[in-house]
C-alpha cells in the first residue's frame, strides 16, 4: 500500500487536488493554481461524500435481508438471505455490463443505447455530467439504487418462489426493467422532459420494486395456509422481530445515504434533505403504530416497522423540495396508508405479501411522488420543481407527477407479468407443496438456518 504512494505521491498530488501542497513546497502559488486546487479539492470532497453515501445505501441490502427474513418463517431463512445476497451480486455485474448504459447512456427518450461496461466516449454520460465525481463513483451510487429496487421483490415473493427463478428475475430487472423506466426520469427521457421530478427515487426505485412485487405475488399465489377456504386471512407470523427491527434501523441509517447522497455532490443542502428524511420516517412510524392500534386494538410492531419504511419511501421523491413541516405530513400520511394498504391487499385482494413490500414501496412510493405535486416549494431548490398545489403552484407539477406514477406503474405491470409468466413457463416459479411445507432451506439449499434450535412447522 504504502510504497505505491511514496512513489506516486507527487503525481497524485499534482493531478488530484493537492497541487497547492506541492506549490507550497516549491513552486510559487498563483491565483490560477489556487483556483485549480480549489476546484480539485471540491471534486475530492464530492467523491468522498458520494462514495460514503453509496456505501450507506449498499448497507441497505442487509437491512432488507433482515427485514424480510424476520418477517418470514425460520424454515425459509437461508433462502431469503441467499436471494438478497444474489440479487445484489448479480446486479453488480449486470448493471455494469448493461443496466447503467441503458439508464444513463446516450440514446433516445426511452432508453440509453451506449455506455455498456462503463464505456465512455466523451458525451456518453451527459445525463450525469452535472455531478463532478468520477464515472465509477456514479456507477457505484446508481448500482446500489438498482439493487434496492431489485431486492424489494424478494420479500413479497418470499417462502414459495424457486431459487433459480428468482435469479433469472434478478438479472432481467437489473438489465432492463429498472434501467428503462429509470432512463425516462433520470436519464434524460420523456418523463423528465415533461417536467416530472423524483429527487431520490420514490418512483424510479421504490415503486418499480413495489409494482414488480405486486405482479410476482399475484402470479405466485398465496402461501399454503395463508387464506382459509372462506378467504379469511390467517396470520403467518414472522420468525424474528429483533432481526426485522434491526433491518428497519439499518434501512433508516442507509437512507441517510440514499436521499442526501442523491445530490451527488457535497453541498449544504444535504442537511435539509437529511432532516426531512428523518422526520418523515419518524412521523410514519408513529402514525402507522396508531393506525394499527386503532384497527387491531394493539400497537403491532411489524406495522410500525413497515411504517418507518413507508415514510422513508414517501419522502424519497420530495425530500429536497419540501419543508420540514410538509415532510412530517407526508410521513404521517404514508404511515396510515401503509397499514390500510396492507390490510386491503390482504383482506380484500387476497394477495399474499409476507413483508408488506407492495404497500410500503409501491403504494407509498406513488404517494411520495404525488405528494411533491402538493407540497413542493420553489424556495428549497430555486428554479427546479416550482411550487406545488398547496403553495399556489397549481396543477401543472401534480399532473406531471401523476403521469409519471401511472406510466411507471403500467411499465412495471406489463413487463412484470410478461417476465414472471415466461419464467413460470420455462422453469416454473413456485416450489412444490412438499418443499413449501418442509421449508425452502432444506429443499432448495440442503441446510437449515437454525440448526441448534427446535423450529415449529405447524403451519
Amino acid at each position, binding site marked *: 500500500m504504502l510504497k505505491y504512494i511514496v512513489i506516486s505521491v507527487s503525481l497524485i498530488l499534482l493531478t488530484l487536488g493537492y497541487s497547492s501542497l506541492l506549490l507550497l513546497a516549491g513552486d510559487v502559488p498563483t491565483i490560477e493554481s489556487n483556483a485549480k486546487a480549489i476546484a480539485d479539492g471540491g471534486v475530492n470532497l464530492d467523491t468522498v461524500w458520494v462514495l460514503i453515501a453509496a456505501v450507506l445505501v449498499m448497507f441497505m441490502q442487509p437491512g432488507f435481508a433482515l427485514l424480510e427474513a424476520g418477517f418470514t418463517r425460520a424454515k425459509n431463512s437461508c433462502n431469503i438471505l441467499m436471494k438478497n445476497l444474489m440479487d445484489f451480486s448479480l446486479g453488480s455485474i449486470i448493471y455494469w455490463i448493461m443496466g447503467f448504459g441503458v439508464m444513463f447512456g446516450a440514446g433516445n427518450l426511452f432508453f440509453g443505447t451506449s455506455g455498456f461496461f462503463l464505456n465512455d466516449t466523451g458525451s456518453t454520460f451527459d445525463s450525469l455530467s452535472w455531478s463532478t465525481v468520477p464515472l465509477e463513483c456514479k456507477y457505484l451510487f446508481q448500482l446500489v439504487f438498482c439493487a434496492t429496487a431489485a431486492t424489494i421483490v424478494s420479500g413479497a415473493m418470499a417462502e414459495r418462489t424457486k431459487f433459480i427463478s428468482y435469479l433469472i428475475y434478478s438479472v432481467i430487472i437489473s438489465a432492463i426493467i429498472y434501467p428503462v423506466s429509470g432512463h425516462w426520469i433520470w436519464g434524460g427521457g420523456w418523463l423528465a422532459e415533461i417536467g416530472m421530478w423524483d429527487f431520490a427515487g420514490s418512483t424510479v426505485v421504490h415503486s418499480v420494486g413495489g409494482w414488480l412485487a405486486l405482479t410476482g405475488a399475484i402470479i405466485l399465489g398465496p402461501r399454503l395456509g395463508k387464506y382459509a377456504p372462506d378467504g379469511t386471512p390467517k396470520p403467518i407470523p414472522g420468525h424474528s422481530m429483533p432481526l426485522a427491527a434491526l433491518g428497519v434501523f439499518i434501512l433508516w441509517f442507509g437512507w441517510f445515504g440514499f436521499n442526501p447522497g442523491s445530490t451527488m455532490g457535497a453541498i449544504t443542502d444535504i442537511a435539509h434533505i437529511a432532516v426531512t428524511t428523518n422526520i418523515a420516517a419518524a412521523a410514519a412510524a408513529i402514525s402507522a403504530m396508531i393506525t394499527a392500534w386503532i384497527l387491531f386494538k394493539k400497537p403491532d410492531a411489524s406495522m410500525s416497522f413497515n411504517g418507518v419504511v413507508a415514510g422513508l419511501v414517501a419522502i424519497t421523491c420530495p425530500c429536497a423540495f419540501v419543508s420540514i413541516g410538509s415532510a412530517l405530513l407526508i410521513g404521517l400520511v404514508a404511515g396510515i396508508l401503509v397499514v390500510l394498504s396492507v390490510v386491503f391487499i390482504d383482506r380484500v385482494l387476497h394477495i399474499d405479501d409476507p413483508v408488506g413490500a407492495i404497500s410500503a414501496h409501491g403504494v407509498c412510493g406513488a404517494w411520495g411522488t404525488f405528494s411533491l405535486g402538493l407540497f413542493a416549494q420553489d424556495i428549497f431548490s430555486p428554479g427546479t420543481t416550482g411550487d406545488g398545489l398547496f403553495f399556489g403552484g397549481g396543477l401543472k407539477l401534480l399532473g406531471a407527477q401523476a403521469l409519471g406514477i401511472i406510466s411507471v406503474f403500467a411499465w412495471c405491470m406489463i413487463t412484470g407479468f410478461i417476465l414472471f409468466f415466461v419464467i413460470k413457463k420455462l422453469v416454473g416459479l413456485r416450489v412444490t407443496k412438499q418443499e413449501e411445507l418442509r421449508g425452502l432451506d432444506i429443499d432448495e439449499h440442503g441446510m437449515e438456518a437454525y440448526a441448534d434450535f427446535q423450529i415449529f412447522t*405447524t403451519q
Partner: protein
Amino acid sequence: MKLIIAYIKPEKLNDVKQELFKAEIFKMSVTNALGCGQQKGYRESYRGAVSEVNLLKKVRLEIAVNAEFVDSTVDAIIRGAHTGSIGDGKIFVLDLGNCIRIRTRENGTSAIG
C-alpha cells in the same frame, strides 16, 4: 381412563385440533418431537459434509380420556391427520391409573374433562 399418545405431521396439528373439538375433546397437551419411522428422511449437506436426516419433525399429542371416549378420540385424530401417505403417524393407547386436577384436587374420571 386411558392415555392416548399420538404422533402426527406438524402441519396437521390444526386439522386434528378441529376434529377433536368437533368430537368434544377439548383437553390435550402438545409437544414437539422428532420421529423415525417408515417415512424416508432427506439428505442435508453443510459445507460439503453430508448427513442423512432420518429424524423428522413430528408433533406429539397426549390426551387423557375416559374409556368410553377412546374410540371417538382415535377416530378424530385419524380424520384430522390422515393423508394416506407414509409418515402420517401413530396412535398409542395406555391405561391411565389416576388423574388429579391440581386446582381442585378432584381425581379419577371426573378430573379428566
